């Protein structure tokens, strides 16, 4: 077995502990004397692990992001002076394996290295089925999904409208596409529209089309999405965001099976099956007067609720293996397996962004893997949000909603630290820099479970 290669950039005072730790873990360690030297080493060869001190000269967020995005850097361990919420959040955002406190101790370093080494056996990726891609493959064997598959099988060949509900990222569009491909309309078009993303006036013209000269600048007749979906399926995503005016127009189209272009005088008959989706509670929206009840009943002839990923048991692993195979093929990487430890980490994560988040994490993991096996160091769970933060989000701790109170942030951080130390209150108190009694009081106050008793938020 080849010796592991570790690249370090730490303060002089911490170098001996790092060297001892590397020796203890039977690894080769190279210490870079500066940020420039670190990147020079990275450009020359690949490393299994990088250990970087947040207090080293010229180390900042931009540099760390660059490091985290480098496939040559392998896994990342950060070291920091004292306990700091920002450092913990940064480590979390970058997907670092560990955040060690300075001054470093050889024992702690060796433990962290050992944890890296012990990834368990690997699980091989299954080959992709022909035609499977990230947008169409509906994967799952859990009981929850069996129910979904059953409903799809029952309703696919009917012409009923279907309302798909579920949290963001649970795969509503994939289900809509599956309904289409399994239906008698599969030869016809599948047209998707995101109602939340399109401004109201645009949405009307986009859905129904417009006549030439219908308004200033309408220089040509335009075909709407309804007409484009004729003979096929129209998927109206995030329907809960549609305005009241458009809801009324949509209801009319569904009742009359005909659309009238903006500025048009004659209705055109259409043969479209509508599948709608929402991540909102439409029953609440109806009570609030934000959604028409009659439209709801028209759309929800069949209602199909998608479970969040965290409730899908072993499907998380299946999906992870599927996405790994998919992206390995797409990016031309010779990846054949995922370590058991990496799969366990995937299975334990909360996945607030559901399958969309898992897909992004696996896409990145493939790119960050330079060997044939995906290891935990390549997983950037919690760092793959598709939208960039704004200034205000940058200024506040990353990873928590802008509306979170200080208490919520504190509770979440304590839970995270507890999880990272296996629920050991003494170690957690040490990391947080508070007395263990204070920590116990806070755990009680916030109603937190230690990892032994349940999942951290």
């Amino acid at each position, binding site marked *: 077995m080849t010796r592991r290669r570790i690249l370090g950039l730490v303060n002089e005072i911490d170098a001996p502990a790092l060297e001892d730790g590397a020796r203890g873990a039977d690894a080769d360690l190279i210490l870079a004397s500066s940020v420039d030297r670190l990147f020079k080493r990275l450009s020359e060869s690949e490393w299994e692990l990088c250990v970087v001190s947040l207090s080293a000269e010229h180390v900042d967020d*931009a540099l760390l992001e660059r490091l985290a995005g480098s496939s040559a850097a392998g896994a990342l361990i950060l070291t920091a002076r004292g306990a700091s919420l920002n450092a913990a959040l940064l480590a979390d955002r970058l997907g670092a394996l560990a955040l060690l406190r300075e001054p470093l101790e050889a024992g702690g370093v060796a433990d962290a290295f050992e944890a890296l080494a012990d990834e368990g056996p690997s699980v091989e990726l299954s080959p992709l089925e022909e035609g499977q891609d990230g947008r169409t493959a509906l994967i799952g064997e859990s009981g929850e999904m069996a129910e979904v598959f059953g409903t799809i099988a029952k309703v696919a060949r009917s012409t009923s409208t279907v309302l798909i509900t579920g949290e*963001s*990222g649970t795969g509503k569009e994939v289900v809509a596409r599956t309904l289409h491909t399994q239906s008698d309309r599969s030869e016809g078009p599948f047209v998707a529209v995101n109602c939340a993303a399109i401004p*109201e006036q645009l949405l009307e013209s986009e859905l129904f089309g417009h006549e030439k000269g219908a308004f200033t*600048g309408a220089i040509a007749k*335009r075909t709407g999405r309804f007409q484009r979906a004729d003979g096929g399926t129209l998927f109206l995503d995030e329907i809960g965001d549609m*305005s009241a005016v458009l809801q009324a127009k949509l209801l009319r189209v569904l009742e009359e099976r005909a659309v009238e272009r903006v500025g048009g005088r004659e209705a055109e008959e259409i043969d479209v099956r509508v599948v709608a989706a929402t991540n909102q509670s439409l029953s609440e929206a109806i009570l609030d007067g934000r959604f028409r009840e009659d439209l709801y009943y028209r759309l929800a002839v069949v209602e199909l609720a998608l479970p969040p990923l965290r409730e899908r048991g072993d499907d998380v692993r299946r999906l992870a293996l599927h996405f790994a195979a998919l992206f390995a093929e797409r990016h031309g990487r010779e990846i054949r397996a995922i370590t058991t430890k990496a799969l366990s980490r995937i299975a334990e994560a909360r996945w607030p962004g559901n399958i969309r988040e898992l897909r992004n994490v696996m896409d990145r993991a493939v790119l960050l893997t330079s060997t044939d096996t995906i290891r935990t160091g390549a997983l950037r769970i919690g760092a793959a*949000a598709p939208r960039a933060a*704004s200034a205000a989000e940058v200024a506040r701790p990353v990873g928590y909603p802008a509306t979170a109170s200080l208490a919520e942030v504190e509770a979440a951080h304590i839970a995270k630290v507890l999880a990272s130390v296996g629920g050991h209150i003494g170690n957690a108190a040490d990391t947080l820099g508070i007395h263990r009694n204070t920590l116990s009081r806070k755990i009680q106050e916030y109603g937190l479970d230690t990892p032994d008793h349940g999942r951290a938020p």
Partner: protein
Amino acid sequence: MHAAAFGGVRLRIGSDREERKPLYRHGIRHTSFLARHVLSNGGMNRFTIDDLRAALPELDELRPLVDYLVATSVADPERTWSGSSELGTAGDRLVEPLDLEEASERLALEVFEHRSRIYGLAARAIAALTEGDAEAATEALLQAASLEAEKGEAPRAAAYADAAYRLARDAGDATLASLTLRRRARHRRAEGRYEDARRDYEEALVLAEAAEDPRGAAEACVGAGNVCEEQARWGEAEDWYRRALSLLGSHEPPVPEQWHALLNLHVVLRSMGSLEGCLEPLREAEALVETLDDSSAVPFLENAWGQYHMALRDFDTAEQHLRRGVAESADARSEITIRLNLAETLFARGRHLDAAEEARRAERRAIVSSMPQKLPEVYRLLGRILADEGILDAFVLFERALQIVDARDLPAIERARTLQAYGEAESSLGDTATGRELLSEADRLYERLGIEHRRDAWSDRYQGERPISESNQT
């Protein structure tokens, strides 16, 4: 009258009405999201930047406040993982009216301070003139121009530089007149007034040569070359850069204008497809930078190497250089431009997720740095990425880019590039009729700008981020 920043939501009265068709595809203008998001939610919770714009009158005096709210806005956490988040733009961000009272007071004070400084400089210019000191008066007016330029007020900056030029000219000081013309040219270029800018640079060159000011003359040449490049007149641009280098000769000691000209020459040669020929000036620039020990050059050099390797389709090396360029960027403009080049590299490799993430980082930087003029580039790229994935709703991003171009009075080239990207995307998504219309419109604009073929104008796929070439005189 200034137009709105990120999401202009109203009709705009201005020249070139023909060009003002932001919602090209639909021929209608955006209305507010107010009805959809605020009224439909019972006036609660979601209040976006677009809602804000619809709620306030479009007045110059409110611009700092609106810019502040845009910069402190947040992405909607509830949409983080929804499909619509991919299509979200600055206008969809949520307003966070935290500490607004304190902030509005501070912003009002900043406006007052800015005006005070401008008034002070005007007063200084008048006092200098009464004492017969045209040079001091000119200097004061140039400082006022710089202050306005810092605020993104190119027309105002050009007006002050113009006043400074007239004073210098009347005083018969050729060196100063050349300098003021170069400043006026720069601000006119920022306004998209390319022909006026080019004439200014040409006149500035004549004056600098007459005054035996080789650095000033070289700066004028580089400026004229930059204008030519923005019009895709590569050959002329090359001539200008070579002329700048010949004017400086083997200047001793070496001066930064030399590497500025060399780097510009490298970029234009690369744009012309001369991958071999462009290497020499790049290496020379690098050697000069080393001699000068000028660390400000690092991001520009890294960007140049990144683009060079991208042109060679050596994407790995390109990515390494561009990431270094991003990390070394000292200002928002450089960072945004280099980041977008990085995103282009990732997009070219099919790494859509990473490309979109880098583009979103560039968007964030543009927002927090109050640089909305960079957003159309971001949205064009995001639109192309989504179109490449077959997402029909990608048009939302192109429409938003057009809106910003109009609302911010950005140069016509920005509009033309957006129409081109939009047209190509629509065609690839199957709406060839709309695609053709958009491309024809882009061609008409290119023609008006003196660009013969639209392919030549698509320089922001491989942007040549370079230093603004100017001597340190003000």
